[in-house]
Each structure stands twice: as C-alpha cells, then as structure tokens.
C-alpha cells in the first residue's frame, strides 16, 4: 500500500529509533550463583536429579492404585467424598508430570548456559532478485504452456473446475429431508396430540383425573400415545408434544371467550416447549402464575393464555385445548392450533394468541 502521505513511520523498517536517548547496547551478562559457586551448582544438580528420582516412585504408585484400588472406593478429604481411584490416579500421574516439567525447566534456568545471544533479523520480504527471478520463471512457464496463444484452454479449465463445485455441493442435498410445505406439515408443524388422546404424567404414564388436580398443582405431562413410539420417533415426538398442566383458581385468571372450552375448571394445558429456542419450561410460580424458562428466562403468564411477560421470547406459549372423558380423565380436544417450539421462517405467526385477543 503506497500513498502520497507523509507517514509517521519510515517506509522500510525502522532503522534509527527516534529515541532521545542513545541505545546503550545489550546489557552486560551477569553470572548466576550457580555459575560462580560450584557448591550452589552441585546443590541445584542434586535437586534436579532428586526430582527425577521421585518420578519412578510416583509411577509405581500409579500402577498400584490402578490395580489395587477398587473402582467404588471412596476417599474423604476436607469433608468432600471423592472417588478414590480417580483422585489417586490423577495425583500420582499429575505429580510425576509436574516433577518432569519442573526439573527440565530448573535445569534450563540454573545449569544450562544462560548467555543471551543476539541474532539478526531480516525483513519478511524476499530479496528483490529472488522476486524478479520467480516472476521471470513464471513468465517462462506461462510462455512454455502456450496459454497466451491458446486461451480457450485456460478459460475452459477454469470453467470446468468451477463447474465441478456443483456435483460436490449438490451431492450434499441429501443431508436431510427437504422441508417442503408438505414435509413441514407432517413434522415441525404437527405433534402427536389429537382428539381424545389422554394426558398422562411424564415418566410414569399415569392418567390424570381432573378432580384429582389441585389448585396450584403442576403436572409435567405427555400424550398417552407417546408410549407406542420408540427411539428416534419417540424423541422427536416428545420434543414437541411435552406439556404442562396447571390448575389455577378460575377467578384469579383471565380466560378469553374463545378458550373457555379449552380448559376444565381452571385446569389449563400449555406446550412445555419455549417459543424462543425450545427449552422445555416447567418453572412455574403458582402464586403469580408465571412460567419461567431456565435457559434464557423468558416468562409467560399462564393465567393469561400464556402471553410473554418478560425475556427474549416473542410469542405466547401455545395452549392445548383439553376436556375430560366419560371417566373424568383429562383428554386433548385436538392438536395444538399453532406449531409449537421456536420460530422458523415459514411459520405463519398470525394465529398465535396476543394480548387483547378474545
């Protein structure tokens, strides 16, 4: 880069420092104690050898611990209950490595010659002759390749190489299924909830009776049909279908008209999947009716159709319409009315509940 600017720095390296004080030159070498005092040097020598001599002891210690200490042995140190094998294996191996390191450095510090030396530095650039020679070689090569006369070879080669990127890229198109509208409708826009699916307690698959749910109660629940799935399908279904059921005093909450029949005596059911980045949320404060996501602290008001009251989430938590079956057990009335979980580009977010909806 060269401009017609008066620079604060000379162009090629700083030859003369603009120092008001002359350079006194390299400091005089001062010998160490170990250089002048044979006894000190011998002491240092013994120390270093002594450290190295401890290493075999520690290695044997490691082997003894490896074979003799049972895996479940415990070790109490300073009130902490530790896994003995882990602690002792690490202690012996760690100390051995430490001694090797310390002795090598001590050797360099006190016994090796510590005369500082000065070397010359050259600019990073090659000498001008070398540059010219390479340029000339390039020129000769290009001439010899006849590319200047047969130009089509050059552009043909460049075009061919460029096109070869296409197969490479296109063959990655099977990285995953394509999220076409039809695929989305069957995957990220749908859960396994459906009319009549029982709400069951997560882990135990216990069906839930509406009149056994108390005011202030929280149930982490799943669709009963989740039981039928396995492996990947199970995880994918669970990642969207997880719900929380809460019961609040109907007089202390706001239930919009359109959702009056989505609940059973103040028992409301929401998606457990945060609308921000999809953490499962179940941190519910029964007095304020607020639900907090422990990942990024988005807070939803379950007493007000799940609207966002704090944090980075932008959309209300989807509510699952529920009712009871003939025996009083909670069942879903349909799937969620909007896709659950974090936003995606093709998501139509006009149907989510917003404050003021009826």
């Amino acid at each position, binding site marked *: 880069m060269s401009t017609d600017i008066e620079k604060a720095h000379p162009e090629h390296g700083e030859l003369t420092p603009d120092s008001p004080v002359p350079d006194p030159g390299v400091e005089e070498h001062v010998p160490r104690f170990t250089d002048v005092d044979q006894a000190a040097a011998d002491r240092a020598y013994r120390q270093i050898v002594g450290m190295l001599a401890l290493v075999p002891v520690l290695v044997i210690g490691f082997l003894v611990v490896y074979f003799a200490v049972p895996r479940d042995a415990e070790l109490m140190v300073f009130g902490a*209950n*530790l896994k003995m094998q882990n602690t002792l294996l690490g202690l012996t191996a760690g100390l051995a490595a430490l001694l090797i390191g310390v002795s090598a450095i001590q050797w360099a510090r006190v016994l090796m010659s510590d005369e500082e030396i000065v070397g010359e530095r050259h600019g990073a650039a090659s000498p001008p002759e070398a540059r010219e020679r390479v340029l000339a070689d390039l020129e000769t090569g290009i001439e010899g390749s006849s590319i200047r006369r047969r130009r089509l070879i050059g552009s043909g080669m460049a075009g061919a190489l460029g096109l070869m990127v296409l197969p490479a890229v296109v063959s990655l198109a099977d990285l995953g299924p394509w999220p076409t509208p039809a695929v989305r409708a069957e995957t990220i826009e749908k859960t396994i909830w459906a009319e009549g699916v029982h709400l069951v307690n997560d882990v135990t698959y216990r069906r839930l009776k509406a009149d056994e749910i108390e005011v202030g109660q929280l149930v982490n*629940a799943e669709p009963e049909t989740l039981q039928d799935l396995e492996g990947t399908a199970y995880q994918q279904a669970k990642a969207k279908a997880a719900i929380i059921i809460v019961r609040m005093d109907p007089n202390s909450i706001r239930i919009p008209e359109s959702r009056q029949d989505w609940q059973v005596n103040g028992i409301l059911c929401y998606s457990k999947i945060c609308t921000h980045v999809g953490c499962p949320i179940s941190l519910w*404060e*029964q007095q304020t009716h607020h639900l907090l996501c422990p990942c990024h602290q988005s807070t939803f008001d379950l007493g007000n159709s799940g609207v966002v009251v704090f944090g980075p989430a932008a959309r209300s938590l989807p509510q699952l319409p529920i009712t009871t079956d003939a025996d009083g057990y909670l069942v879903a009335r349909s799937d969620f009315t909007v896709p659950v979980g974090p936003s995606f580009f093709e998501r139509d977010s006009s149907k989510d509940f917003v404050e003021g909806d009826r």
Partner: protein
Amino acid sequence: MTSPASAPRPRQSLRRHRAARPVLLALSLFLVGAVYAAVAPATTSSADGAADAQLIAQGKDLFAVNCASCHGLNAEGLAQQGAPALTNVGAAAVDFQVRTGRMPMGNPYAQAVGKQNTFTDDEINALATYVGSLGSGPKVPGEDQYNPDGLSAEDVARGGDLFRTNCSACHNFKGAGGALPNGFVAPSIEKTDPAQIWEAMRTGPGQMPVFAAGAIPDEDVKAVIAYVQQVNATPSAGLTLGGIGPVAEGFWAWVVGIGSLVLAAVWIATRGARA
C-alpha cells in the same frame, strides 16, 4: 396410607383415615366439653380425642401469639399483609413452614426462607394439629409415606427421571437450587429432610407448585427422595465447585488453570538471582 393398621402410632392412624377428619373434629369438639364437664371413663379413642383436643387448644394459643398478627385470629388471612388464609392448607403445610423456620417470617413481602426453627416438636405438633383441624389439606405424613428405605435400584433410577422431569428445572440437577424471577430463589434441597420434601411437594410452599398424589403418588415421592439422597451421597470425581454447572467450571478453569500456568510461565521466564 389409608390403612390404620399399618401406622405405628394410634394418634396418627386416626388422623390418617379419610373419614376420620370430620369425625375427629366432631368428636374432639364434643370431648372438649365432656372432659371439662365430668370425669368420664376413658376409652382408648376418647383418650386420643382428649389428647387431640388439648393439642388443638394449645395450638390455638400458640397460633394466636405467633401467627395471628398476619394470618388473622381464625386463620382467615389478611390480604393487606399478603398473608393467605390457612383454613385449608392442612397440617403438613404448617409442619413444613414452621419446622424449616420459614414461618413466622420477618418480612412478609419477601420470600420466606429457611432459618433456625425456634419451636419445640410439641409446639409444632400442636400448631399443625390446630390448623389441620380448621379445614381440609394434607396431613403431616407418616414415615411410611416418605421413608425411601428399601426401594430397588430401578425405583430410585425412576425417581431420578421424575426428579429431572419435575424438580430440576427450579432446583437444579442435584438439588442445589436456582433462580426464579423477581429475586426469588428455589432453595437447595440437597440436605432437606425427607418428610419436608414430601410436605413441600404436597403443599406447594411459596411459589412452588403442588405435586399432588393424583399425578405423583407416595411411591413416586419416595423414589424422588431416595434419588436426591443418593445422588448427593455418591462420591464425586473431585471438588464439586458448587454443583452449579458450567459457569463455575469456566470460572475455575481461568482462575486455577490459566492462573497457575501464568505463574509457572513467570517462573520460567524470569531470571533468577544473580551473583
């Protein structure tokens, strides 16, 4: 838990029966009068009832002195104090709140936190019995409801699964506690008494939701308690650094790791003493 025969103590067996509560209430009211009026021949049950009546009276006195200023003389609650009615919270809630030192609380607008409890077991028992006698709500649990001894490894592991599903969102993966909105916290439950874990789940103290038997029966509560106890008794692979996860780990990586290595680097690069 509904079988009187399985209970070790007769007093508890009576209180534990579903039908017992209204009966007990009527009986005790009757007996309060009866005992004062005349010396009646004491049957087993009437002696119990008499003891209960005495307890309730004692509890009422204690309540008037220690609780009524916020919760009202008849436990009806005082809205302006932010104190809820206690008529239907149940004896278990009182036992939990008083035994852990949460009640009586200093500042009624802050979160009730555990502190040194200043009541004797008898006093707590009396208070709980009194409040329990006012209405519905869970009773103080018997040992068979919360004692996790004798569970199989699979049961405890299922307890772990339930713990991670229902509890860890607030109380963290091993019960070390966590943050709630607006300055509230979920406390550590690593060393909490099993009975109190049971009571907290059933009564939902403070902001904590209720986890009632309809979804999580006593067997599952026991499994959760067993898991919390055992996961905290498992030897760790070194100091646990507070058990709060990667934030503490990152902090210590810088302090201990980079800190000690920079010290080592300084040692390597400095010239030692010179002659």
